[in-house]
């Protein structure tokens, strides 16, 4: 993911050590200087996200990464990034929580990532990779979306992906000089009027207008940027909805089910915000059961139920504490819901 960020033209990384994502920080420490980029090990996650705020304001592709407790600390800064319309990529290699929790995989940060986390009416685009190849693709996409819509984008990974090794093909590196200009950036008021970057608007009418404009941009994102993958859904009678590491395990469960003649399918939301409500709504008319599986107590489940309403049964299978279900565990749960 760190190398993908460099390929995407990221030239400023600020981070603070926390397991299970130290490899990103260490990779950036070793490689950012070789491409003429900036690396700082900050004094805290709070400082790191605010360094991102400054570097992004200066017009450079910028990233930070952390894991759940550290992401909580970044939430103030993420709210400011969103409110100042600044692009930034944030990787969360999520771990067990709440509190200190543990360093095992978890999806307990879904609400925080997709529903806000920081204060005020804002959204991040949230991308959920299931494999390292997907993580690379989505980190590249994250930088493009962040710049295009001037929003912070989170890649919501987990401790399983963070500690995994698998062979991948790296994309062609992007030359930062070839990226579209950012006329709003702080580059010095030479030959133009001053640029100001701020989230402050004392007059409620001004703030109302600015917020509505931002919400309009969010509606555009919802319209254009929803991404999801369907596996074996065309004839399915029961469908699993899962993202990230769980989606990968569920793919195997689908294969196992199909070999037993069971018509099981999978929908993997790739954008967690914007969520693929329409796709699930369409499927819910023709399947009886849509089973949500998460490494949480049921967070994405709420979005699934918003999409499905009462058009299908919406049971839930959640695993907590950093435990990860096997394909067989998921299949057993599917069978329980069929019978």
């Amino acid at each position, binding site marked *: 993911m760190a190398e993908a960020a460099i390929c995407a033209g990221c030239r400023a990384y600020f981070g603070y050590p926390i397991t299970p994502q130290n490899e990103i920080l260490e990779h950036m420490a070793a490689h950012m200087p070789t491409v003429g980029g900036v690396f700082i090990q900050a004094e805290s996650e709070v*400082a790191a996200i*605010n360094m991102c*705020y*400054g570097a992004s*304001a200066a017009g*450079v592709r910028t990233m930070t990464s952390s894991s759940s407790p550290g992401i909580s600390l970044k939430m103030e800064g993420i709210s400011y990034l969103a409110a100042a319309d600044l692009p930034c990529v944030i990787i969360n290699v999520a771990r067990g929580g709440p509190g200190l929790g543990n360093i095992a995989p978890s999806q307990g940060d879904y609400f925080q990532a997709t529903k806000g986390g920081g204060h005020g009416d804002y959204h991040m685009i949230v991308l959920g990779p299931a494999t390292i190849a997907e993580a690379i693709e989505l980190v590249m996409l994250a930088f493009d979306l962040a710049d295009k819509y001037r929003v912070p984008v989170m890649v919501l990974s987990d401790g399983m992906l963070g500690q995994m090794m698998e062979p991948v093909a790296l994309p062609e590196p992007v030359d930062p000089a070839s990226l579209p200009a950012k006329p709003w950036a702080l580059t*010095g008021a030479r030959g133009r009027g001053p640029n100001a970057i701020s989230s402050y608007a004392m007059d409620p009418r001004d703030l109302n207008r600015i917020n509505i404009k931002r919400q309009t941009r969010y509606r555009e994102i919802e319209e254009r940027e929803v991404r999801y993958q369907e596996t074996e859904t065309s004839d399915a009678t029961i469908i699993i909805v899962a993202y990230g590491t769980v989606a990968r395990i569920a793919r195997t469960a689908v294969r196992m089910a199909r070999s037993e003649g069971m018509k099981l399918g999978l929908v993997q939301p790739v954008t967690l915000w914007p969520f693929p409500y329409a796709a699930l709504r369409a499927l819910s008319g023709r399947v009886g059961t849509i089973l949500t599986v998460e490494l949480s107590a049921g967070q994405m489940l709420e979005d699934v139920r918003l999409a499905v309403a009462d058009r299908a049964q919406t049971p839930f299978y959640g695993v907590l504490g950093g435990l990860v279900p096997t394909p067989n565990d998921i299949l057993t749960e599917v069978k329980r819901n069929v019978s």
Partner: protein
Amino acid sequence: MSVNSENMVKVFERPRSLTGAQFSYCPGCHHGVVTRIIAHTIDELGIQDRAVIVAPVGCAVTMYEWFRCDGIQAAHGRACAVATGIKRVNPNLIVFTYQGDGDLAAIGTAESIHAANRGENITVVFINNQIYGMTGGQMAPTTLIGQWATSCPEGRNAQLAGHPIRFAEMIAQLDAPVYVTRQALYDQKRIVAAARAIKKAFQCQVDCKGYSLVEVLTNCPTNWRLSPVETNSRLMNEVVRTFPLGDFVDRT
């Protein structure tokens, strides 16, 4: 008596780097003096088109609207981290923060100390008025022992609330800072000295020498509930006893 305007010479004018937008400070407040000194410094050094203001929350929150310079508003306490991000990706810019005592010495202690410790080539202007101004006069980390504030109605009690933090002296313990000084504005001589110190701090950045901090002892007539003249006496006679003036580091 008639005046021949052709023979008049302009001896004083608004610094060119100011837009003319009205400052939002209270009457008699030293903030306006410091802000003007900074504008004058930017003019003198010819850095209007390279300067980037990192504005705080509070009384100077819209500072970026007063200058013909690029600017950014930082979250409370985070200005030095924001300045670090800007300066590192574009070292040609002249980046300065303008921060109060709560911002720099309470909520932003970590960011402020570590930016200094890394020797970031930025300039920090620290407004020490010993109180939270915009929020209505609560105790600051720099409030004097015995000083009244809305959140220490019996006066600051060291047993309950600790002692005033001498931030410039703390920063002076570090190896990296190049210029660390404490100035005041209670009379004309002090204003001239403070202006010289602020110019030196900016020059230090222009010359790529490294981190500089100018702490300025200022007043808050509104929340101290004193007249501007009384605040100057108080600064001269009381405040400097806790916060001695002078240079603490000068490696320029």
